């Protein structure tokens, strides 16, 4: 196996890892603060993709329509996040986690049908937007330049989240709340509102990643389940609720997938779960996770 083939595979693994990070970071952030594992995160991602498509179609701006549409879709998803958190999840924090999990599972079912109802079952696609239409040649192999856009966006999100969590006052509160929410509440910080905004941020990230996933793959029913199961692998490998863990997990899963496809395409997904099982045997709480109390 020559170096150029491996490098190309590595780069497509990085692109996939970047998209995975976009989605999984929202999932991990929500879990870290709210301690709710949001099954519906993939559904928010799917809904974001479909809404981006519709706005993009309606805007009819050839060049920058896609970027604007993705931005607007992410705002819409934020609004939907407010509805879900305020009317459903908020009433369940006092209950056990199985009921919270089941509630988000119910949202998965509802969103699936809403999408089926609103957009039908067909595959939709958005052409790659300018200036990322063409391909870049890496050692003689064509590599879609749109993948670079996704990689850049992933990096931007890493930096933004790192800045938000480790360099701002809100970040201090987020980390404190993840550690001991009663104590934070006792200090006079309105925890319910913090939870709402974190969930909204997660939903917006989901919408944004769904939007940029459009030109990367196809927009179709089922993309929610496909991504959420991989995201579970990401957060479990990295450690649930940890930002560096999510980054590492995305990298591992993206690379395992990229090289798994080269080795045996049918079992690329199976390899991911094998790696995940292996990690869990060595470190049951993932690389950066903390044991449950």
């Amino acid at each position, binding site marked *: 196996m020559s170096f150029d083939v491996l490098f190309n595979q590595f780069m497509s693994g990085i692109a996939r890892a970047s998209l995975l990070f976009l989605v999984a970071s929202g999932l991990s952030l929500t879990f870290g603060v709210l301690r709710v594992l949001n099954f519906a995160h993939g559904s928010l991602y799917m809904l974001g993709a479909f809404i981006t498509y519709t706005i993009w179609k309606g805007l009819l701006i050839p060049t920058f329509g896609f970027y604007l549409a993705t931005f607007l879709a992410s705002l819409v998803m934020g609004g939907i996040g407010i509805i879900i958190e305020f009317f*459903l999840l908020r009433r369940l924090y006092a*209950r056990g*986690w199985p009921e919270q999990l089941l509630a988000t599972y119910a949202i998965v079912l*509802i969103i*699936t*049908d809403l999408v089926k109802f609103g957009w039908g079952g067909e595959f939709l696609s958005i052409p790659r937007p300018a200036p990322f239409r063409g391909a870049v040649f890496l050692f003689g192999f064509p590599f879609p330049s749109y993948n670079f856009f996704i990689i850049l966006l992933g990096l931007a999100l890493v930096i933004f989240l790192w800045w938000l969590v480790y360099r701002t006052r809100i970040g201090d509160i987020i980390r404190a709340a993840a550690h001991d929410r009663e104590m934070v509440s006792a200090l006079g910080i309105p925890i319910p509102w913090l939870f709402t905004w974190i969930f909204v941020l997660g939903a917006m990230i989901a919408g944004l990643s769904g939007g940029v996933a459009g030109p990367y793959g196809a927009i179709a029913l089922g993309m929610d389940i496909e991504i959420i199961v991989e995201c579970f692998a990401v957060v479990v490998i990295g450690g*649930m609720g940890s930002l560096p863990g999510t980054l590492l997990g995305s990298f591992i899963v993206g690379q395992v997938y990229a090289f798994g496809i080269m080795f045996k395409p049918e079992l690329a997904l*199976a390899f991911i779960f094998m790696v995940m099982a292996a990690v869990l045997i060595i470190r049951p709480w993932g690389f950066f996770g903390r044991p449950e109390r």
Partner: protein
Amino acid sequence: MVINQTEQKESMLKRGWWLILLVAGAIIAPHVISDFYLVILIEALIMSLFALSFNLLFGYMGQLSFGQAAFYGLGGYTVAMLITKVNFNFWLSLLAGVGVAGFVGLIVGFFCVRLRGIYFAVLTLAFGQLLFVIIYKWHDFTGGDDGIQGVFPPGILKIPMAYYYFVLLIFIASAFILWRIVNSPFGHTLKAMRENPERTEFLGIHIAKYQLITFVIAAAFAGLAGALWVPFYRSVAPFYLMWIKSGEPVMAAILGGASTFFGPVLGMFIMTFIHAYILGFTHFWPIIMGTIILIIIFALPGGILEFAKVKIKERQERMKSAKGSS
């Protein structure tokens, strides 16, 4: 303690009469209802067995498995492949289905019982998806996304009515075995581990061993359910192993009441019949199911049977206090 036991016996007797009534109803049922609902009834019975296997983990061991469908699907696939590929004996195929599900349960369980709570749920989900992907993609061996068709039960069992009584018999036997398990010292140990793992461990009980045994039993019964369903439906598809399928017993348990033995059965019957009824006029079944789940979670925490139990207890206490005051 002695009084407690006689009280328990009394309540067992009280429970007994409606169980007998239910069984009698189940025996008469196929002669009363239409052929369409007979098929639904068989499905409900098999899915109830699946839900009972799930609730052994969820209700008694206290761990939520989101990958139980993998064992259901494995049981089904084992039967389908043995019957269609090597023309294996039907009865031995059923046993093999249970065996394969139990054996894979042993491997998967070995890893899963080290984890608790949400981590357990996600790991079971991941293993379930792993098995699903393998069967889905391994086209040469399993038929991939085409699944396997033409799985026929032998002789008289091809008639739905006969198959119904066969399933009913196995269901009653399985439910009885599971009932005995959860009410045995083993079952009480499970409940103790659920309530307080640390304290139970201090009593010298090896938690992981107990949980692994439970995991294998649950996997075997889920496999039995799948092995029963596939010859009746005549085909199997990878979808049976998917996490969406795993969600069904979770919903049934929470709908009916996970803290009661028969809650999941009630939940599964309600779900299966609503499903059959709704599919008559719309394909938008998930949205209705999702809404029902949300309503149950908010309006009837603990599930229908638990809610009914609490209400009955309240009434009895009111009557007692009324007697006491007069």
